C-alpha cells in the first residue's frame, strides 16, 4: 500500500457523443480526453495547467467519479475508482474529495453552513450527532473561520470565506486526496494568496495529496511540486514547474508561457 501512488490514471479517454440529430449537420463525437496517463505520489502536489477546453476539468471530474470515463482507469490509493463507487457514495468520498471553482455555487443557498458541513460528518465519517458540534468547530477553526459563523447562509460570506468552507467540507471526513479545480480563479489576488497559503498549511498538517488545476501558470508554480501541461485532451509536457516554465520544450507550452503578461 505504501508504495502505491495516491492517484494513478491509466490511458483515460472521455468522448462526448453528440446529441442525436436526424437532420442537419451530423456532428462528430467530441474527444475531451484522448488517453491521459499520470500518477501522483502520496504527499505530492501535481499541478495541471491548460486553457479552456483542454480537458483539465473533465479529467478532474473523472478523478472523483463525477464523470464516468469512456475507457481507461483511475486508481485512488491503489483502488479502482469504479470499485470504490460501487461500494456506495461513502467509500469514494472518504478517499478523494473535490473543491470547485465557484465557491458560492458549490454551497446550497438554502442550507446553513452547519447543515452543509454536517453532511460528510454523517454520511462519510459516520459520526454520531452528539459529536458533531465539537468537530464542526474544529473544522471551522482549521480553515481560519470563526465557528460562530456556522449558522449563517452562503450568501452572507465573501468568496474567500466560502472557499474556506468548501475546503473544510472536503477535509471533513478525512479524505487524503483532494482535487482542486481552479480553487482560486474566482477570487481577488489578495484573497487568492491567503487561500493558497491555507492550502499549503493544511497539506502539511493533514499529510494531503493535491491535484491542483488552474489556467494560471504562476499560481500553479506557487503550489505544485510537479506540473503537467494539457492541450486538446492530451498531456503535452511534464516537469518541475520552475524548470518547465523557464525552459519549455513543447511549442504549445512555449506559446503559453510567452503569453503570460509579466510584471
Amino acid at each position, binding site marked *: 500500500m505504501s508504495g502505491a501512488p495516491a492517484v494513478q490514471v491509466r490511458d483515460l479517454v472521455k468522448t462526448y457523443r453528440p446529441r442525436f*440529430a*436526424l*437532420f*442537419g*449537420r451530423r456532428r462528430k463525437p467530441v474527444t475531451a480526453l484522448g488517453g491521459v496517463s499520470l500518477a501522483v505520489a502520496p504527499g505530492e502536489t501535481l499541478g495541471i495547467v491548460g486553457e479552456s477546453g483542454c480537458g483539465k476539468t473533465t479529467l478532474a471530474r473523472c478523478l472523483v467519479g463525477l464523470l464516468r470515463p469512456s475507457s481507461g482507469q483511475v486508481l485512488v490509493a491503489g483502488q479502482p475508482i469504479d470499485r470504490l463507487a460501487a461500494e456506495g457514495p461513502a467509500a469514494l468520498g472518504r478517499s478523494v474529495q473535490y473543491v470547485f471553482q465557484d465557491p458560492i455555487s458549490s454551497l446550497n443557498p438554502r442550507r446553513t453552513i452547519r447543515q452543509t458541513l454536517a453532511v460528510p460528518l454523517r454520511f462519510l465519517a459516520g459520526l454520531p450527532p452528539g459529536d458533531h458540534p465539537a468537530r464542526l468547530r474544529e473544522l471551522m477553526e482549521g480553515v481560519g473561520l470563526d465557528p460562530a459563523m456556522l449558522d449563517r447562509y452562503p450568501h452572507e460570506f465573501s468568496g474567500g470565506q466560502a472557499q474556506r468552507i468548501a475546503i473544510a467540507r472536503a477535509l471533513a471526513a478525512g479524505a487524503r486526496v483532494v482535487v482542486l479545480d481552479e480553487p482560486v480563479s474566482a477570487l481577488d489576488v489578495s484573497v487568492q494568496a491567503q487561500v493558497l497559503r491555507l492550502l499549503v498549511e493544511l497539506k502539511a498538517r493533514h499529510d494531503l495529496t493535491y491535484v491542483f488545476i488552474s489556467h494560471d501558470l504562476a499560481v500553479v508554480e506557487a503550489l505544485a511540486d510537479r506540473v503537467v501541461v494539457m492541450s486538446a485532451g492530451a498531456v503535452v509536457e511534464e516537469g518541475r514547474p520552475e524548470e518547465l516554465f523557464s525552459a519549455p520544450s513543447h511549442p504549445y507550452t512555449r506559446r503559453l508561457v510567452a503569453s503570460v503578461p509579466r510584471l
Partner: protein
Amino acid sequence: MPAYVLGRLLALLPVLFGLSLIVFLIMALIPGDPAQAILGSYATPENVARINRDLGLDRSLPVQYLTWLGNVVTGDLGRSYSLNRPVLDEVLERFSATLILAGAALVLASVLGLLAGIVSAVYQYGLADKLVTFAVLIGISLPSFWLGLLLILLFAVRWRLLPVSGMYAIYGGGGLVDLLWHLILPATTLAVVAAGVIARLTRSAMLEVLRQDFVRTARAKGVSERGVVFRHALKAAMVTVIPVIGIQAGFVLGGAVYIETVFQWPGIGRMLVDAIGTRDILLVQGGVLVVAASYVLFNLLADVVQRLLDPRIAA
C-alpha cells in the same frame, strides 16, 4: 431552415400519437357498452350491429384503435346520430366559425398587448405604466363569461349599439360587414384576458432586456433611444413573447367555448358542450381531434417564427 421544420415535424410525431391516443380514449373509456353510448336513444339493434362492424367495437382495444386511426386518416370521423350527418362536415363548419372568432381575438389581443406592454415598459412607473398595470390586473381577473353578459347588457340591451348574439343577422344578414358587426363584442370579450397576459409579459420582457449588457453597448455606441427600444430591446424581447402568444392561442381557442355559449356563436365550443349534453361521443371526439390538431400546427408555426428570430436555436 427546412431541416429545422422537418426536425420539428418529426418531434411532433410522439405528441400526435399521444394526442390521438387521448382522443381515442374518450370513446374507449366511456362506461358501459360503447355502441350504446354512441347511439344513445338511436340504439336500435340494427344500428348497434352496424356501428360495431364499422368501428370494430366488439374487438380488442388495440384493434379498435387501429381501426379508428385508419378511419381518421382517411377523413372518416364517423356519423353524428343526434345531428344525423357526418361528424367531419359538422366539425369543419363549426370550426371555421370558431377560427374567425378566435383569430380575430388573438390578433386583437396581440396588437393591444404588445402596444400596452411596450408603452408600459418604456414609461416604467409613469402614469401610462400605472394605467396599463391596473387595466391588466382587471383584465386577467375578469371571468370572460361574465364580462360577455355585462357587455351584452350594456351595448346590446341598454344602448342597442351592437347585436345581442349570433354570427349573422337572421333577416337580410350575411356578408362581411354583418359578420364584423357581430364579431365586435365576442372577439373583444375573448381578447381581454389574452391581451392582459401578453401586455404583462411584454412589459417584463422589455424591462429585463433593457437591463442587459448589449443594450448598454448600443447606448455606448451612440444609438438613439428609439433605436435602443425598437431595434435592440423589442427584438430580443419578442423571443420570449412569441411562445406566449402561441400558448395564448390555446387559451383563446379554449375560452371561445364560453364566448360561443354567451353570444350564441355557432362555433365548435358550443357544439362540444351540446354534444356532451346529448352524449354524442363521436361528435365530441371529432371536435376535440380537429381543434387539438390545428392547435399543434399553430404551435409549429410559432416555433418556426421563433427560430427565424433567434438564430441561437439549434436545428
